[in-house]
């Protein structure tokens, strides 16, 4: 494929993106507007993440793409194929072997390392959006660090439900300054954002926003002293395939009589454990 530039985007566009990334890294948690391009996949399919990945990729990179934690979900397959085609980079399913990981809705279970880049696909980058629909207002609120509305919202949850009723896209505070939407990852994954050795980049294509967490950034999930944040997952369950107790689990319906099982959402983590167990048994 020679009709397109390396990694699809032209170099001027990549430069624009890299400038936005640098600004985002310089102001952790701040949403940097960028002139998002129309991509050959629809908005909502990860165009923000794809643009970030395209801007970061070099020919020596090894790319991993996951959706819902899995390498083999249709959209992950599609994006991985796209870059294999337009950038001819090596791809992998192993978290440890990847230099760039593009993800939707999960952070891998295996700890990330220095030098790795984790690219998140973001649908709605603005954590205050569902409290205030206007961009002009929310930008001012961030500028003034005016986050009272969010605190009240979380307090109302506690008053009504006895806890903060947010299961995913649980808002975080970055280095004690900006409130940030971590993308729709389950709140189980929130602690992995904090003090992470890898660079974490967030791209929202349709909304034209990029933001970032440089390595080892302090990221706190919003809570109250008497109602501390708790990451949660399926209570008291372990993975039916690898037996993991510490991973995030998907619930799978197995019959029409209420039968169900739980399996790791991170397919690489699960498959690696199963392979090690098979080796030990042999």
């Amino acid at each position, binding site marked *: 494929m020679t009709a397109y530039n390396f990694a699809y985007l032209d170099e001027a566009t990549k430069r624009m993106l890299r400038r936005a990334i640098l600004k985002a890294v310089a102001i952790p948690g701040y949403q940097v507007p960028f*002139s998002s391009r129309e991509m050959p996949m629809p908005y909502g399919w990860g165009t923000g993440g794809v643009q970030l990945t395209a801007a970061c990729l070099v020919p020596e990179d090894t790319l991993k793409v996951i959706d819902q934690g899995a390498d083999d979900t249709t959209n992950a397959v599609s994006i991985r194929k796209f870059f294999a085609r337009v950038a001819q980079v090596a791809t992998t399913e192993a978290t440890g072997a990847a230099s760039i990981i593009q993800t939707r809705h999960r952070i891998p279970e295996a700890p990330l390392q220095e030098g790795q880049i984790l690219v998140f696909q973001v649908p709605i980058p603005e954590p205050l959006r569902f409290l205030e629909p206007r961009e002009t207002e929310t930008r001012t609120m961030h500028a003034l660090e005016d986050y009272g509305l969010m605190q009240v919202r979380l307090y109302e949850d506690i008053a009504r439900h006895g806890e903060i009723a947010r299961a995913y896209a649980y808002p975080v505070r970055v280095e004690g300054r900006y409130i940030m939407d971590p993308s729709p990852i389950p709140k189980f994954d929130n602690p992995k954002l904090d003090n992470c050795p890898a660079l974490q980049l967030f791209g929202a294509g349709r909304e034209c926003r990029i933001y970032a967490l440089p390595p080892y950034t302090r990221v706190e999930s919003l809570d109250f002293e008497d109602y501390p944040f708790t990451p949660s997952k399926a209570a008291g369950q372990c993975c039916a395939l690898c037996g993991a107790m510490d991973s995030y689990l998907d619930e799978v319906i197995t019959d029409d009589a209420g039968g169900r099982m739980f399996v790791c959402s991170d397919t690489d983590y699960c498959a690696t454990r199963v392979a090690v167990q098979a080796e030990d048994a042999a």
Partner: protein
Amino acid sequence: MYVAVKGGERAIDNAHAWLEDARRGDRAVPDLEIAQIREQLALAVDRVMAEGSLYDPDLAALALKQARGDVIEAVFLIRAYRTTLPRFGSSLPVDTGAMQITRRISATYKDAPGGQVLGPTFDYTHRLLDFDLENGQPVPPAPEADAQAGPVPHILSHLGREGLIQAEPAGSEDVPDLTRAPLEFPAQRALRLQALTRGDEGFLLSLAYSTQRGYGRNHAFVGELRIGHVRVAAYLPELGFEIEFAEIQITECESVNQFQGSKTEPAQFTRGYGLVFGQSERKAISMALVDRALRARELGEDMADAPAQDEEFVLSHCDNIQSSGFLEHIKLPHYVDFQAELELIRKLRCAAAQGLEAAQ
């Protein structure tokens, strides 16, 4: 036993093969030619060019064929192609006064210099199915007359001479480009018009209709609607002169709206403006009405809080590639966030049940 969602890659390949097969349909029926679509489905082609913001009838026809007639999908194909094209620069403003008119009507004056030209319009057709079309009967050529010589001045310029319609400020030299800079609010009018002309026809139609029904009411007359061909030129600094490089068909609408005056402005007519690629008068009129509605704040009108008057609401939601993408993405897997919700609901229900027991 649980079967993981394996085989995504093969499923995708098979789905694409099936799609291609379904697109072609019954092989006993001849394959559609691009020229047939371009010539005989010209208004669909025009819509794809307008919302795809790329003037190329052949590519738009190809996109329609590939998209199986799904206009928004065709627009998407064109947009994704357009975004890869280099940007040389901007054309000079087109002179719509020098348009080669194929249709030109005014609802405000019975006659005006240049006359009223109905052109190829559905307006006064009776909507009876023409069963002759089933058999592909030959169509005799339409009667012809000599084209009018000379430019056809804009009808609203007559109002302008009397000072009865608000003069439009001259545009700035810097043309904003929605596709090269992120949209920020408040947006200047040029940028708003750019967003509207690419915007979804159905969305703009409904918004314009809502202003007619009282949500931001501002009665509009179609001062002038004109369709025809204009020349497009650019100034090339290397050569030091202008060069014409295209002739395109466009639809232009200027609405005349009453304005009773405000603290700063005397009573006068004001204008809404619509300009769209191809023959797209429904879109051009809608655009003019929405453009005028969006000027409510600038003109200091009271009660400027209807949806069509809300710049952020209109501009954030008028693009059908953005909206259909985000709408349809909810069919992608959401196992993980749904699982998180499931656990939360179970936990809340459990807590509520325990609370109920404790109360009893």
